[in-house]
């Protein structure tokens, strides 16, 4: 036994290697279940377990050693054809891998094996192995070993854990018969890599400065030297980029096990096909796409793939197929997740969209699939009635989309009823480098991420008067038939005005943030180039307008504009206008169905209701609790600042409260646009179920959206959006100093 204190490094390596082995085993067992006769595969698994047993023995980890020994014995029998593999045995073997993993985690924490009794598992494994002979087959098939060049027997005595010594099960998850590459990789810290990357990009810049000298020089040998430096730098740069790349199988290898487990849980039969597992991506991106991919797979198995009986009746094979395919295209990595299940239930989506008042029933009929697909990505939009244990854990497709767009990617869904669903992810090759548009404003250069730009418009300065229109104080631009708000980059960044020269043309960068299109005025547009993104660091991390910085070819630093940050800082998004799809307020016949509403009373208006969904709590507040905040009334209640809205002030037909009434009022609280509002009412009556069908009011009434019929009585429905807008607009009309209200609606 070794002195552990002095062998931390070896132990850490052991843990790392063991984890890799366990990850690969997961995938290998699944494949073994599909092709139980694959002798080579069995041989690989056998050797992996044998390696594990050997190294556990070396560290005197008794539990690890015993379990891997039991697993190895069973596999030995299978390999020798004495017994055959069935699902029960696969289950036990996968259990074995799980237990081994738990032990390894324990070892990592405490540097010693965690306590535990594995007798039951070992006995099960032994019982399964006990068919004919009791003797454990010890002699390893040397011929098979030499195929892989791995010397298992030697390793047991060797204290070194270099990869070359360890027999690794086949790691290429793709369907390829390429023999496994056994060259020894070196593990490098990501920080070291980043530093090397920095140096390399500096090297490139230095070379760029050197090139003009060579071009002008008459000294031939100097020019030749510069030429070779040029070539070497280029190659160095390419190699550096490659170093950060890892095959996508790094993430995929865990999926076979995952799919098997989910399918069993759903009582479905699913076969996972992985194509292009060798496709390489930046390591940071791989981590970013893992969760979205898992979610998509879960969705496919849980929702799309049908139960075996259903599939049979549809004339499909009982076993559903999910195909994962990755490949490079136009400098992006495309990942396709294709299933042959039931496809997306578009009627369900239409229904749900109508329920959520995103579209009207007439519109729904005509809506194209593409539009409906977009709806799936709205927060909280799920057509699944019951939340199952698998999908619908509060993580919806909106989160998937966010994760993908955060790394500069995009997602696209296509689906055919009964033919299946295809989800396409487009992921940039690397996070560290992205194409950006360089723009100039007041003699400063800024980079705007290209994937956020919709189009560029060049404007003739002589026409500027006519080009930007004044929307009562806010400049807007008429982009074809649409009005888009316009921001001036130099105003947003509060740059010092330097250029008074207006003879040059100015340009408009049309971008989009949270579904809102807007234009950014810049002085000049330079070019689109790949920039290396660097974080601004902790000293400057509270500046939401920047996504980072980059070093330009000249060696100068240029800030990268964060489109979302600029949009929200300027108040363009985060207001009521931010809805990607504006709720339809015209209350023509809306689909049948019922909706829960809270019925309450205002001074002079005895029957008014608001959808229950919009209300968070009902509180009792007294006049003394109200406090002044500038010209607004606020309540500080349970650590929350709430804006008081006296509904009587905003709803037509109400008498203004003479405040001679009761000292305590019920208040309905609602949380909208990151603010909590307390709506003061006279009395709360009941929760009622009313038909969704609303009747438009003959003449629009202030603060009232429509009316519904409940037990032959007409009940007014509060227009909360209008009331809040009126409340927020109130500020600008008063004489008092304005409350700073960045996110408020300023219409």
């Amino acid at each position, binding site marked *: 036994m070794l002195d552990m204190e002095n062998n931390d490094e070896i132990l850490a390596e052991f843990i790392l290697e063991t984890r890799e082995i366990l990850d690969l085993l997961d995938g290998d067992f699944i494949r073994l279940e599909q092709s139980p006769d694959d002798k080579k595969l069995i041989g690989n698994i056998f050797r992996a377990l044998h390696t594990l047993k050997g190294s556990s023995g070396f560290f005197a980890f008794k539990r690890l050693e015993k379990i891997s020994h039991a697993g190895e014995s069973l596999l030995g029998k299978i390999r020798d054809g004495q017994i055959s593999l069935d699902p029960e045995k696969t289950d036990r073997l996968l259990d074995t891998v799980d237990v081994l993993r738990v032990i390894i985690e324990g070892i990592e924490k405490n540097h010693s094996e965690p306590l535990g009794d594995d007798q039951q598992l070992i006995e099960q494994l032994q019982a399964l192995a006990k068919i004919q002979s009791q003797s454990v087959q010890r002699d390893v098939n040397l011929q098979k070993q030499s195929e892989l060049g791995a010397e298992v027997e030697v390793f047991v005595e060797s204290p070194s854990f270099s990869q070359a010594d360890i027999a690794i099960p086949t790691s290429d998850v793709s369907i390829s018969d390429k023999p496994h590459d056994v060259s020894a990789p070196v593990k490098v810290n990501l920080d070291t890599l980043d530093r090397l990357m920095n*140096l390399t990009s500096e090297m490139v810049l230095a070379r760029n400065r050197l090139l003009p000298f060579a071009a002008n020089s008459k000294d031939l040998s100097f020019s030749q030297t510069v030429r070779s430096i040029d070539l070497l730098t280029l190659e160095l740069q390419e190699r550096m980029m490659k170093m950060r790349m890892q095959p996508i199988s790094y993430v995929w290898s865990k999926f076979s096990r995952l799919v098997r487990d989910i399918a069993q849980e759903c009582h479905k039969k699913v076969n996972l096909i992985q194509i292009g597992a060798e496709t390489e991506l930046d390591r940071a991106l791989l981590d970013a796409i893992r969760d979205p991919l898992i979610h998509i797979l879960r969705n496919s198995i849980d929702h799309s793939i049908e139960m075996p009986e259903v599939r049979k009746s549809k004339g499909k094979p009982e076993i559903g197929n999910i195909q994962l395919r990755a490949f490079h295209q136009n400098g992006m990595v495309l990942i396709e997740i294709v299933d042959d299940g039931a496809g997306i239930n578009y009627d369900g989506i239409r229904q749900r969209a109508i329920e959520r008042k995103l579209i009207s029933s007439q519109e729904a009929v005509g809506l194209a699939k593409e539009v409906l697909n977009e709806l799936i990505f709205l927060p909280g939009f799920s057509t699944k009635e019951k939340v199952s244990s698998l999908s619908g854990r509060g993580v919806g497709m909106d989160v998937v989309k966010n994760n993908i767009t955060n790394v500069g990617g995009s997602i696209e869904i296509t689906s055919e009823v009964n033919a299946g669903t295809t989800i396409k992810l487009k992921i940039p090759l690397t996070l560290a480098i992205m194409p950006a548009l360089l723009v100039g404003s007041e003699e*400063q250069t800024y980079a705007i991420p290209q994937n956020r730009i919709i189009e560029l418009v060049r404007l003739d300065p002589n026409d500027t008067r006519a080009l930007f229109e004044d929307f009562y104080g806010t400049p807007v631009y008429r982009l074809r038939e649409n009005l888009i708000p316009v921001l001036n980059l130099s105003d947003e960044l509060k740059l010092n005005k330097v250029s008074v020269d207006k003879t040059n043309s100015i340009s408009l960068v049309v971008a989009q943030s949270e579904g809102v299109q807007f234009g950014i005025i810049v002085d000049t547009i330079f070019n689109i180039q790949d920039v290396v993104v660097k974080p601004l660091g902790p*000293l*400057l991390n509270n500046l939401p307008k920047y996504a980072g910085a980059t070093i330009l070819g000249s060696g100068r630093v240029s800030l990268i504009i964060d489109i979302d940050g600029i949009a929200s800082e300027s108040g363009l998004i985060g207001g009521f206008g931010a809805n990607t799809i504006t709720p339809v307020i015209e209350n023509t016949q809306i689909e049948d169905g019922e909706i829960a509403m809270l019925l309450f009373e205002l001074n002079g208006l005895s029957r008014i209701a608001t959808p229950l969904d919009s209300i968070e709590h009902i509180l009792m507040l007294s006049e003394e609790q109200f406090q002044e905040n500038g010209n607004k009334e606020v309540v500080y209640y349970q650590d929350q600042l709430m804006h008081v809205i006296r509904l009587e002030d905003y709803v037509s037909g109400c008498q203004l409260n003479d405040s001679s009434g009761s000292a305590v009022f019920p208040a309905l609280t609602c949380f909208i646009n990151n603010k909590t509002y307390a709506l003061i009412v006279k009395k709360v009556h009941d929760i009622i179920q009313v038909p969704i069908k609303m009747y438009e009011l003959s003449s629009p009434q202030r603060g009232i959206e429509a009316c519904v019929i409940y037990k032959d009585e007409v009940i007014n429905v509060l227009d909360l959006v209008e009331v809040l807008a009126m409340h927020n607009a109130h500020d600008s009309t008063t004489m008092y100093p304005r409350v700073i209200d960045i996110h408020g609606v300023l219409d």
Partner: protein
Amino acid sequence: MDVNYLTFFIGKSQFCIPAERIVEINRHCDYTIVPGAPESIKGILNLRGQLIVAFDMSSLLGVASEPSLHNVVSILVKVESSIISLMVDRVGDILALGDSTFEAPPNNFSLHMRNAVLGAHKLSDSLLIIIDPNLFISQLTTTASANELLQTSF
């Protein structure tokens, strides 16, 4: 034990920083302004591929600099795990000073300056103020996070 200090000037005033922190001294650095950043942050510059935050020492210390020399010299110093740049008018000598001349700031020393000044050395004709970059870096990062907290609570 004497410690080496690098002295630098802003206008007529002399300050010093512990010399062991110094990475290098540059002249005429090309920095990029960061609109919206605190006033004492002059901008960011590129040091062999690393982004360095440049501090305007005249604004940070509240001392007027000579207009012709304003932010001409960049002293790159190591703080915690990163490197920052202190933009000053000019650099002076390196002095070796011991504990015997060191004085901590007086009790009524301004709170604002406590975030930059470690103490002073009594020279024969004046007091040499010691600047500790670590102090104002940690102060800046804490106010940054405090600001964030304030913004999210409303």
